[in-house]
C-alpha cells in the first residue's frame, strides 16, 4: 500500500477499495492512529503531535454481526455500523478515539465506546449547539482542554509552531479539495461524483501530507482529461454522513452527474479554512464552530439565511436538481429537511427526499424514484 504513491485517480480508487490499510500499515510501523467521528473534530491537534487522524466510517450495505447485543436498534444506523466494525476488531489498529458531542447519538456513543472497546485514549469534545459570542469563548476553552488531554496522553507538549504548521497543511488540503470541486463545474464535469467520493473519503484516513500529494496528482490528471460532451442532469447531493461511494454511484448510474454536495464527508469537511494569522486555538475554535453548516449547530434566521449557501452552490455548479438525503433516526437532519426542501423549491429547483437505512439501502426503490425525478428534470428543461 505504501506504493500507492502511484496516486492519480487509479491510486485513489485503490486506496478507497482498501480503506484503512494505509493506517494499519502506519500503526504497524509504530505510528499512533487516533480514530475520530464528525467533521467537528479539530484534526490539526492530532497532526501537530504526529498522531494520524483517522475518520471512523461505517460499512454501507454490510450486514451487522455483533452490534445488536450492545447497541439499541432504534439509533443512528451509521453509528451502529461503525460500532459493529469496532466490535469485530476492524478498528483495533486505533490507539484511541475522539468523539465530539455534536448530536445525541455521538454523546451517548462516547460512553458506550469507552465501556466496551476500552481504547488507550478517549476524549469527548463538547461542541456548543449555539454560536453566540460566549459559545466561541467556551469552545476555545474546550479545545484547550482537548489539547491538554492529548498532551498528557502523548507525554509531550504541542508546540505552537508545529500547530501552526499543521493548520497550514490542513488548509492546503482544503484548498486542493476546493480546486477539485471547481473541476466539477464544467458540463460535463471533469470527474464524476463517484470519483470525487473515492478521493474525499481517502482524505480522512491517511496523514494529511500524503493526502495533499494524492490530491495534487488527481487534480493534475483530471485537468488533462477531455470528457465527451453529455447532457445528463447536474445534481447536488445534500445530507449528513455518506461514507461510501456506492451511494453516489447508484445515483449516477441512473444517467445523472452528481457535481456538488453538502455532506459532512464532502464539502462541509473541507470548505472553510482556519485563519492562519490568529492565535491557533482561537482560530480553530472559530473555524470549527463558525464555519459549519451541519444541522447540529443552531443557526438563526429564515430558510434563505440558513440555507443560502446551498443556493450559491446551485448557482455556481449550475444545478438542475437536488437530492436531500437523511439517515433514519437522525432528529437534527429530519427537523431541517422539510425546510431545505421548501427553500430549494423557492429557488425553482426540483428536489427529491431520500430517507435511508444506511446498512441496507433500498437501492432498487431508490432507482425507481431517482429515474422518475430525472424525468421531471428533463421535462422542465424541455
Amino acid at each position, binding site marked *: 500500500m505504501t506504493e500507492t504513491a502511484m496516486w492519480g485517480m487509479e491510486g485513489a480508487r485503490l486506496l478507497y477499495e482498501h480503506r484503512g490499510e494505509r493506517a494499519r500499515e502506519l500503526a504497524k510501523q509504530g505510528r499512533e492512529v487516533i480514530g475520530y467521528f464528525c467533521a467537528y473534530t479539530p484534526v490539526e491537534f492530532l497532526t501537530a503531535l504526529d498522531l494520524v487522524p483517522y475518520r471512523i466510517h461505517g460499512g454501507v450495505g454490510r450486514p451487522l454481526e455483533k452490534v445488536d*447485543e*450492545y*447497541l*439499541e436498534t*432504534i*439509533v*443512528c444506523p451509521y453509528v451502529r455500523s461503525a460500532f459493529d466494525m469496532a466490535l469485530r476488531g476492524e478498528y483495533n489498529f486505533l490507539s484511541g478515539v475522539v468523539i465530539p*458531542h455534536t*448530536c*445525541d*447519538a455521538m*454523546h*451517548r*456513543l*462516547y*460512553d*458506550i465506546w*469507552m*465501556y*466496551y472497546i476500552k481504547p488507550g485514549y*478517549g476524549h*469527548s469534545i*463538547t461542541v*456548543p*449547539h*449555539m454560536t*453566540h*459570542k*460566549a*459559545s466561541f*469563548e*467556551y469552545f476555545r*476553552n*474546550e479545545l484547550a*482542554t482537548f489539547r*491538554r488531554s492529548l498532551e498528557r496522553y502523548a507525554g509531550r507538549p504541542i508546540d505552537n509552531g508545529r500547530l501552526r504548521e499543521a493548520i497550514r497543511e490542513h488548509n492546503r488540503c482544503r484548498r486542493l479539495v476546493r480546486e477539485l470541486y471547481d473541476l466539477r463545474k464544467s458540463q460535463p464535469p471533469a470527474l464524476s461524483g463517484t470519483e470525487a467520493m473515492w478521493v474525499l473519503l481517502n482524505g480522512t484516513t491517511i496523514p494529511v501530507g500524503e493526502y495533499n500529494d494524492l490530491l495534487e496528482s488527481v487534480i493534475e490528471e483530471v485537468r488533462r482529461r477531455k470528457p465527451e460532451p453529455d447532457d445528463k442532469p447536474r445534481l447536488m447531493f445534500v445530507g449528513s454522513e455518506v461514507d461510501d461511494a456506492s451511494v453516489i454511484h447508484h445515483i449516477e448510474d441512473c444517467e445523472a452527474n452528481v457535481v456538488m454536495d453538502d455532506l459532512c464527508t464532502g464539502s462541509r469537511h473541507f470548505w472553510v479554512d482556519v485563519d492562519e494569522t490568529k492565535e491557533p486555538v482561537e482560530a480553530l475554535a472559530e473555524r470549527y464552530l463558525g464555519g459549519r453548516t451541519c*444541522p*447540529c449547530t*443552531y443557526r*438563526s434566521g*429564515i*430558510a434563505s439565511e440558513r440555507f443560502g449557501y446551498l443556493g450559491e452552490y446551485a448557482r455556481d455548479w449550475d444545478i438542475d436538481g437536488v437530492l436531500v438525503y*437523511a439517515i*433514519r*433516526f437522525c*432528529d*437534527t437532519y*429530519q*427537523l*431541517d*429537511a*422539510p*425546510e431545505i*426542501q*421548501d427553500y430549494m423549491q423557492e429557488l425553482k429547483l426540483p428536489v427529491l*427526499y431520500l*430517507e435511508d437505512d444506511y446498512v441496507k439501502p433500498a437501492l432498487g426503490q431508490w432507482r425507481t424514484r431517482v429515474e422518475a425525478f430525472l424525468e421531471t428534470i428533463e421535462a422542465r428543461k424541455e
Partner: protein
Amino acid sequence: MTQQTGEKTSSRKFTESAGKIRTVVKRMYKQAQQAKEENRPIAYCMVMCNYEEILAAMDIVQVYTENYAGLCAVKRQAAVYMDKARAEGYSELLCGYAQVGIGFDAMRYELGEMPPDAPDGGMPEPDMLLGCSMGCDPRWKWYQALGRYKNTPIYNMDLLMPQSDANIDEIEEYSVRYMAEELRGLIAFLEEQTGGKMDYDRLMAIVRQVEETRWWWREAYELRKAIPCPMTTQDHFVLFVPHHMMLTDEFTLEFYKGLYDELKERVDNGIGAIDDEKYRLLWGVGIPPWHSMYILDYFLNFGAVFAAETAYMVPEPYDIPDRVDDPVEMIARRMFVRNSSLQRRGRAAGNVPALAMAHLERIEDFSLDGVVMHVTRSCRASTMGQIMVRNVIRDRYPNMPVMFLESDIVDVDTFSDTEAKNRIDTFMEMVEARKGSTK
C-alpha cells in the same frame, strides 16, 4: 392497537397528592389560555432548562410543549397531530413529542384557529419560543421548525452535560461562565421582547423558594426507601408535574410539603402502596408509555411495586453558597453541579458511566429487585445506552433481572398489550426466582 379516544389509559394512583394532578393540569392550561386573552406574554418552553425562575421573575407565562404532547398521548389524541406533521414532510421516526407539537401548530396555522377538540383547550399561541440543548437535540431544533408556521422570536441556549469521564475540576469554571452568559442572553432577549426589566432581587427570592420546593420533594422521595414503599412510579409520573411545569408557584412548594406529610404518615404507619409488597422495582431510563400507563398496574398482580425511577428525577441537592449574590451565576453554577454530580461519583466508583451510575445508586439505596427500561422508538436520547446500563448493572449485580419494554412515548401503534404482558410475566418469573434464591 389502534389509537382511539375515550379509552382508559391511565394507571392507578396510590396517594391523594397524585389524585389532585389532573385538576392541576387542567387549571394550568386554563390559566395559560386566560393569560393569552389578557395579552400577557406567553412562551413555549422545554422542561428542566433551568430558566423557570428567570421567566417567572419576568412574568412570562410558561407553556411546556413536550408535556402537551404527553397529554395528547394520555388522551389518545396524539395521532391526529402526528399525521399532520408527517403530511408536512416530517419523518415518522422523528421525536414523537416534536411530531405532535409541530403537527399541532401546523394545524392551527392551516385552520387559523385552535385545532378543534385540542386536549384541555390546547396550547395558546406563544409570543416567544425558548429552547435549550440539555437532554436531547429536538429540544433546540423543534422550535426553529415552527418557523414554517409562525414568525415567533426564538431564543435557544446551551446547557452543558459533561461526559462521564470529563475532568470536572478542569472544565467547571469556563462551563459555568458559558452557561451564565447564555442565561444573561436570555434575560436580554426577554427584556427586548417584553419591554420589562429583570428584578434581580425578585429573581434571587424565587431561586431560594425553588430550592425549598425541591428540598421538600427530595425529602418526600427519600421516604420511598421505606419497606413497604408508600407510593409507586404510577404516582411519580404525575407528581413531577408541578415541579417541571409550575416550579416557581407558591402552590408547588405547598404541594410537595403536603406530599411529604402524606408519605410520612404512611411510612410511620407501615402503609405501603399495596398490602403485600413482595418485590421492589426500578423504572430505569426511558420516558414512560404515556398512551398506555395502565400497563404499569400489571406488575401489581405479582406484588411488585416500582419504588424508584431514573426518569423525571428529583434534582440533586444544592446548597446555595452564602457569598453568591448574583442569581444568574448561582443558577449556572447550580446547573453545572447538578449536571456533573453523577459523573463525579461515577468516576470515583471506578469510571462507571454517569447514566449507569444513577441506576446503581437507586438499586442500592432503594433495595431493589429488578429493573424495567422503556425502549422508546421515537426517543433516542432516553433509549440509547440502555443495553450498556443493563450490562453495568450486571457487572455489579450479576443476577439482577432487567427487562426492556418496547413501544413509544406517544405513538400507541407501537404498543402491544399482549406482548408487554408476556414480557412482564417472564421478567417477574426471573425476579421471583432471584429473590427466592437470595432469601
